[in-house]
Structures are given as C-alpha cells and as structure tokens.
C-alpha cells in the first residue's frame, strides 16, 4: 500500500510536507534559531516596527521583536498536537456512535442518528466559537471543542457502512455459532471499518488544522504567548500592509499542512475506497 501511495505524486508531496513539518515540530528546540518567546531589543526598528527578513532574523521579527521563524517552528507543535488529538477524538466518537447505532438498529439508531442530523444543522465554526467562548480555552480545550463539532460526518459514514455489514450473511453465521456482540463487533465488523477511519483520520486533520487556525485568529483559540500559526496572524494582523510576511509566512504554513493532509487523505480514499467496502 505504501508503495502505491509513493507512486502517486500528490500523495508523495503530502507525505513529504507532513514529515517535514512533523520533524520540525519534534526537533523545535534544536532547529529554532532562538527561543520563541524571547523579545530582542535589536528585533525592532528604531521606530518600534517589526524587522523584515534579514541575515540575523531569517523571516523577520514580530510586533514584540520576537523571531518569526522560531515562533513558526514551535507553532507547528500546536497545529500538529491539536490536529492529531482533536481529529483522533472526533474519529473515535464518530466511530463509536455510528457503530452502536448501525449494529443496534431500531430506536437506538433513530435517536443517535437524529442527534447526528441535529448536530449537522450547526455551522461548525459558530458552534466551536460558542463552545470556546463558554469554556475559556487552553490547548486541550480547543482540541476538545474541535472534536465535539467534527465527529458528525464520521458517525454518518460509519453508520451507513455498519448497517450494510450487519445485513451480511456471515454476520448471521457468526450469531448462529454463538458469537457474542462484543466478538462480532471487534472481530467481524470493526476490521472492515478501518479503511474509513484511516481516510477520515487523515482528511479530518486538514479540517481540524484550519479550524484551530481560524479560532486562534479570532482570538478564542490557543492563547498567546503559546505560538500557534493562527494566533501569530491574530497578533500581527494590524501590520499586514507594512509587514506582510508576518501574515503570509504563517498563512503559507497553514495552507501547506492542510493541503498535505487533504492530498494524502484523498489518495488514501482512492486506494482503499472505503465507501465501496460498506456496500459489500
């Protein structure tokens, strides 16, 4: 499978970008030229404005005279931690709900899936904003808020597939030879859902990264001084006309990471075609 992925140029590009950003996040303390929170006296011009990219500060400095490159490298940690944690949680919640509803059927399914429909009626960002405004956000609260709005599509897809699987003859056969619910779910249904979880686990990270960046840009995501690509733009947006690198460098980073996960997820989807699996 990996070989097939590597032969697809779009997927390869995605993988390389993800690996590069992941390595930068892991090696941040060694890779970053300066500590991300250090304010340099020489990091601001005589008029107190941020410095443009130059030999000392490669990508220039921000409004407080901090090194932008170092903040971007540490910001990769925030994006990836939230991306993985929030989306992982969303996939788990969605899978659990979809699986239970699809397997149990009847009233359980009706109630759970009507609730899913209901959640679909809320615009993700607005719901996340309301939740973030209610629980004053830390890194993990932001991840939780994003997970709470992003599980919905996963639940729908998993539900449809589980329903398709439950009606198969081999499940009937399992029951006939006395397999319990737990065994049927874990040994005979869940394995068929792994491709879907994998595809959503990848595509969903793109959505999550964008949502975190947007919340942080609106000032209710990850709070400064913890650097996040979104809050770097939030802090510096007033300088966009005179110091555009302060907006467009983190902006390019967000785009690259979201694009990479979208390309990889799309390639995985073509390869595994999980939507076919459920129909059996």
């Amino acid at each position, binding site marked *: 499978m990996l070989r097939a992925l590597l032969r697809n140029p*779009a997927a390869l590009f995605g993988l390389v970008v993800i690996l590069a950003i992941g390595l930068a996040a892991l090696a941040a303390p060694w890779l970053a030229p300066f500590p991300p929170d250090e304010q340099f006296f020489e990091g601001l011009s005589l008029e107190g404005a941020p410095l443009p990219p130059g030999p000392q500060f490669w990508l220039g400095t921000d409004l407080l005279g901090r090194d932008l490159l170092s903040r971007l490298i540490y910001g990769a940690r925030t994006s990836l931690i939230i991306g993985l944690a929030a989306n992982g949680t969303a996939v788990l919640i969605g899978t659990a709900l979809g699986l239970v509803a699809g397997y149990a059927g009847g009233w359980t399914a009706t109630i759970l899936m*009507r*609730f899913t*429909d*209901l959640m679909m*009626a*809320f*615009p*993700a*960002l*607005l*719901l996340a*904003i*309301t*939740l973030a*405004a*209610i629980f004053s956000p830390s890194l993990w609260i932001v991840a939780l808020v994003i997970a709470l709005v992003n599980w919905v599509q996963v639940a729908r897809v998993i539900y449809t597939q589980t329903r398709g699987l439950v009606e198969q003859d081999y499940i009937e056969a399992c029951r006939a030879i006395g397999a319990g619910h737990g065994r049927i779910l874990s040994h005979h249904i869940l394995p068929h859902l792994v491709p879907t979880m994998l595809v959503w686990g990848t595509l969903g990270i*793109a959505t999550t990264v*964008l949502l975190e*960046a*947007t919340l942080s*840009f*609106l*000032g*209710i995501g990850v709070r400064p001084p913890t650097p996040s690509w*979104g809050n770097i*733009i939030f802090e510096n*947006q007033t300088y*966009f*006309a005179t110091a*555009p690198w302060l*907006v*467009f460098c983190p*902006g390019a980073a*967000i*785009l690259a990471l*979201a*694009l990479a996960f*979208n*390309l990889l997820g*799309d390639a995985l989807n073509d390869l595994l075609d999980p939507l076919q699996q459920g129909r059996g």
Partner: protein
Amino acid sequence: MALYLAKRLGQSVLILLGISLITYGLIYLAPADPVRQIAGRSATPETVASIRRQLGLDLPLWQQYLRYLGQLLQGDLGRSYIQKTEVTTLILSRLPATLQLLAGAIVVELIIGLGAGIAAATRRGRPADRLIMAASFVAVSAPQFVLGILLLYVFAVQLRWFPIGGYGTLAHLVLPALTLGILGGGWYARMTRASLIEVLRQDYIQTARAKGAGPGRVILVHALRNAALPIVAMVGLDIGMFMSGAVVVESVYGWPGIGQLAWQAIQRVDIPIIVGVTLVAATGIVLGNLVADLAAPWIDPRIRRG
C-alpha cells in the same frame, strides 16, 4: 408527494426544536451570570433576587426552557449583556449586509465551480484537468482569513483597485464575496467534474452527439441538467459553510453583517449574541436543506414519480 412534503416539514420542525434545546443548554452552561451582568456588582441581594425572578431563573429547568422556547417563537432572542439591546433587533439590522455577501459568494462559487468543473470534465486526464483539480485542492485547503488578507493586500493596498474595507457599493462587495466564494468554488469544481463525467458516459449523451448536437449544446443542455441535482443539494448545505465563513470574512473586511456582530460579541464574551447568531444560522441551514429537498423533484422529474 403531499405525504413527502408533510414528513419533510415535520422533520424540520423537530430539528428546529432540537436546535433550541441545544442553544438553551449552551446559555445554561455559560459561566457568566446574567443577573450579575444586569444588576451590576453593587446590587443588593433583594435586587438580585427580583431580577432573578423577572428572568424566570427561580423556576425549574424545564419551565425555564419552555419560557425560552415561547420567547423564541415570538422572535425574542434575549438581550445583549453589554449593549443592553434586543439581540433580535441587532441581528435584523445586520442581516441585509450578510445576505448581500452570501448572494455575492454564491454567484462567485457557481461561476468558479461550474466553469472549472466543466472545463476539467471535458478535458479529463489532460494537463488542464490536472491543473484545475490541483487548484481546487488549494482552494479548499486555504484558510479563509489568510486568503482575505491576501486579496486585501494585493488588490486594495498594492493595486488600489478596490476599497480596503467597508460596505455600500458593488466595489466593496467584490473582495469579500471572492474570499467567501473561492472555498465553495473548489468543492463545486470537484463535484461538477465528477457529476459530469458520470453523466457524459450515459447512452443518451451518445444519442445527442449522434444526432449532431455540438459539444457546447451537449454539455449545457443535455448533461448539465442531469448533473444539477447533487449541485442543488449542496447549495442547501452551503449555508452552513457560508455562515461560518461570514464570521471570518466580515471581521477581515469590516463588513457590517451578523458575522461581524458575532465576532464583536466574542471579544466581549457577550453570550446571548453569539448564541443568537448560531441559532439564526442553524435555522438558515435547516431551511436551506428543506428548500433544496423540495426543489429536487422539481429539477428531476424521476424523483417526482418516486
């Protein structure tokens, strides 16, 4: 048909009820105490108790919810903590600006999406197709606030073709509508392409070609009509994406709509406004989906016959 209509309407009403339950839950969870916000810090315990009674906060929870529901049915979304104005009044005064922005964004996304989708589908597998698909991936991966600031920087600050922000004329609308519409345009391009490729394989297209219809006529008259259904179904879902996007785009461009209202409310943790905008947006989504579902049989007679 009448049964389908009634069933679909009933479902929408149930979902709207569910939405009100959730928004009530959100208000209830909010840590800010509305009584303290209204009474101020120096209020006597008697004043606090009387305001509590006025607001119905001494009632059991289910009665409070029914009261809230009754207010909603009368179009009352509560009062802003900070501005002391009715939330409904605030939202209504800003709705026209947002609707104008949404209309602009829909035009942009349809032009970009249909144009790029048709161009890609008719050149399947060729470099132009690959380029358009790559561009659509970039469009759906781009953070809207960065795109907004980028367009502002290039077209307003550097080239001075459009005003830097504000509201009123068509020139003010171009950049915000473009920012909001590009994301949807990316999705539509992919959707139109997939839908058209599917339709172009069918026999009746062969027949149309055999009878001498030119490529333009085949696409626009014969194929697009059948590819339209998933596209219309998507317009209903779009409203959600737009409402989320409006918060970002309106705050970047200083567009005086309900997105900006929500953004200003976020800065002041003015929960009634945030929840009110969420409620209005969710209602808009339910209605959008309803309209899309009801329009489906009208577009595709096969559904009408069931």
